[in-house]
């Protein structure tokens, strides 16, 4: 692990973040947008863990933030999928272009 500089790990997390952004821009299906959000959250987790391991090895704060982010991601996915299933039941589509019910 000592041979790899921190910037290489940050390269992976940055690339993963922007891959998630690309999916967020191009996808039109709510479930695939949710998957892109999961990728983005995971890249943030990699960042926290890498900073904690490389720059502050005497602390554990990055580890705690990672655990809390994972928890929040789990609850976010549960609520999002509940909303998606409810939308599908009333509109028979989970496409973001067709679900404009809340627009004025």
């Amino acid at each position: 692990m000592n041979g790899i500089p921190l910037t290489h790990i940050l390269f992976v997390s940055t690339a993963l973040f922007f891959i998630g952004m690309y999916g967020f821009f191009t996808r039109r299906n709510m479930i695939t947008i949710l998957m892109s959000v999961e990728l983005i959250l995971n890249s943030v987790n990699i960042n926290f863990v890498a900073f904690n391991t490389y720059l502050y090895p005497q602390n554990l704060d990055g580890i705690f933030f990672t655990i809390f982010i994972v928890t929040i991601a789990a609850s976010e996915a549960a609520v999002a999928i509940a909303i998606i299933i409810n939308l599908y039941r009333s509109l028979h589509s989970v496409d973001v272009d067709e679900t404009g019910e809340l627009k004025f």
Partner: protein
Amino acid sequence: MNTSDILFYCISAFILGTGVLAVTTGKIFRSAISLLFSLMGIAALYFWMALEFIAAVQIVIYVGGIVVLIIFSIFLTQKSGEEMPKPPLSKIWFSFFSVLVGFIFTYYLIHQYGFGNGGEQPFELKIADIGNQMLSLTGKGYILPFEVISILLLAALIGAIVVAMKIKNKSE
């Protein structure tokens, strides 16, 4: 370059490759499976950093929980064998270039800053330390976020049930 470095680059290539597949594949079920492999690759990255506990959390919650939930919702709402409609080409190019510019800019900043090597002593993670600090009431403890997040989990649980619940018509 020793074996550990090569392993890191292999894991990184695996994560990014399956991540790209997850956002570009036409079939939604394949996209979910690619996401699963990408999350497994991130767990492997945590194993490579010798953070076994975080890797276990990643596998249990993401791979075992969230991806399974996503696959269930795909089966409930989608025709999983069919190709999804492709976005228009102009949108693909616009997204690609904006993402590319953002990535280059961000990585340029990271590269310029450099970050150096902060800590000399090796990092070691003891699970007992995590538990002690999580529940300690002293200044470095995380007891308040722990309690707040337990309330949040309860709220999300009840909220998800209420939102997804089917309300029966009284008239029938």
